[in-house]
């Protein structure tokens, strides 16, 4: 969340990505970057794991293996024979199935959070930047004010007040994530606004919102995509913190954060797999997003490094 803000500042001051042929160039540049391609492959694998996992898991994610319950340290170890490939959780539920389930939730939180940020932030920023003047001033002051709010504390309050649910989590995360995106989009729009194609559109009598949607937003895409890729991992980290505080998703659903914090609590009982399995997925996915994000940025920013 925070780390991305600095990048947001950088992006806000960058020149807008130009022209269409650029996309092809960017693709070539991206695929030349080994770390980025590696990251992309990892992400695809994790995504695949989340999608087809439920079909290959021998156990259901909420089903208790009664023969394991009560002696998890011995009987719940990862093993091919019992069908608990990743071992079980403290209640004898299959960790493979639960990790699949947790992966779905965590990825969903990350992607939906980033998605809200992209939609709201881009549009808000584009409107502010396009209209400029007083509108811009007021809209951006609002963003400044919202940025002064201790958002983590407010999210805790929201979850306490309205109860724990996926929806609340999305709302809470979405509420704060769009602010940086709005600043980036505004910065970019300011430079786009005076471009000939926009002026041409204005001259032919196209309405302002049509211009924003048809001409401004598509040209913001490059920057937005880069930033969104970096936003997803920070959303995932964010969710894991909420889960650690015990305010995450409800049982029997789970998430990486919930699994990790449960696993780290069990560390002293000698059941390390409960920590290592979800932590592995968490870490490689975040690595993947970071590498892809960096790769995209380098690819879309043709400055030679």
């Amino acid at each position, binding site marked *: 969340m925070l780390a991305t803000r600095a990048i947001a500042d950088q992006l806000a001051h960058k020149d807008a990505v130009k022209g269409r042929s650029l996309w092809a160039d960017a693709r070539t540049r991206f695929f030349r970057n080994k770390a980025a391609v590696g990251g992309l492959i990892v992400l695809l694998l994790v995504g695949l794991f989340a999608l087809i996992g439920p079909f290959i898991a021998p156990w259901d994610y909420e089903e208790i293996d009664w023969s394991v319950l009560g002696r998890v340290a011995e009987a719940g170890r990862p093993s091919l024979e019992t069908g608990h490939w990743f071992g079980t959780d403290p209640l004898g539920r299959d960790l493979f199935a639960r990790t699949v389930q947790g992966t779905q939730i965590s990825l969903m939180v990350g992607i939906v959070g980033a998605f809200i940020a992209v939609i709201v932030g881009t549009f808000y920023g584009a409107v502010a930047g396009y209209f400029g003047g007083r509108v811009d001033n007021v809209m951006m002051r609002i963003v400044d004010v919202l940025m002064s709010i201790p958002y983590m504390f407010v999210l805790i309050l929201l979850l306490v007040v309205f109860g724990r649910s996926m929806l609340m989590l999305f709302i809470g995360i979405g509420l704060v994530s769009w602010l940086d995106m709005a600043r980036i989009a505004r910065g970019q729009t300011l430079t786009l606004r005076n471009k000939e194609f926009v002026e041409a559109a204005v001259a032919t009598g196209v309405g302002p919102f049509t211009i924003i949607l048809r001409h401004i937003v598509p040209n913001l895409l490059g920057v937005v995509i880069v930033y969104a890729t970096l936003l997803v991992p920070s959303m995932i980290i964010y969710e894991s913190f909420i889960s650690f505080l015990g305010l995450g998703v409800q049982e029997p659903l789970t998430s990486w954060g919930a699994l990790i914090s449960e696993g780290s609590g069990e560390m002293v009982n000698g059941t390390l797999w409960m920590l290592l399995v979800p932590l592995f997925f968490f870490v490689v996915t975040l690595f993947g997003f970071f590498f892809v994000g960096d790769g995209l940025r380098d690819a879309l920013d043709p*400055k030679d490094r």
Partner: protein
Amino acid sequence: MFTFIFKRLLIAIPVLLILIVGTFILMYAAPGSPFATERGVPPAVLANLERQYGLDQPFYVQIWRYIWGIVSDFDFGPSFIYRDQDVNDLIAQGFPVTLTYGFWSFVVAVLVGGTLGIIAAIRHNTWLDYLAVGISIGAQVLPNFVLAPILVLIFTLWLGWLPGGGWQGGQWQYVILPVIALSTSFMASIARIARASMLEVLTSNFIRTARAKGLPMRRIVLRHALKPALLPVISYLGPAFVGMITGSVVIDIYFSTGGIGQFFVASALNRDYGVMMGITVLLGALTIFFNLVVDILYAWIDPKIRY
């Protein structure tokens, strides 16, 4: 410059007011009362409690009293749970603790992270660079609620070098583990930002010119590249400091340092309205203050920016 600072401080007032009113509304919307206990408090007792804390007054009277208490006496009112202390006492006890380990974590994160990032950039695409990038991404993604228990397991249980928690007035051996646990992810972020911006600066024309003139690398980095390369790092410092204060929840829970972080969650969960409001105002004020400090620093380093 001064008008700028003045303006920003002036904006702080409505922001804090909005924050107070907003939190008040949320508080009212929350189910559950600070006085509920397992034993179901009888209505007469509940009425006594509500009268004592002014909860029997209309909403606007309560807000007004609260704000007036702050403005006139700097009094944040009573805690609804800790009946032997009021909010001022609790914050006065906890905040110096949070600030102390927050400050050291900040210093460690900036120095270590900055150095790591700059070295990685100078030795771009060498094993040193890859190592630094690997370490910093690893450190960034390892949640501190996993790191903290591991640290205690190693340094307290196995090695017996450091106490596993407590504060004891901030003696050095009690400060080390909290600082490591808190600074790691910020250090990693700073390293990544510093590396990226240093790389950008090093490829810019004025550095190329300096290189072409045959200036030694050390001199180029220290005299010319460092200052512009630090700009993005500085813009990250404000949010980083606020993030550290937020991250102190984990530190206070795991190391029982007695800082205010513990209250972020506990006050909301216990419906300790008094502490909750106090923390909101404090965090809001801090956020505004650090954003302002960063803007001033920014202006000081980057002469292009004028307020």
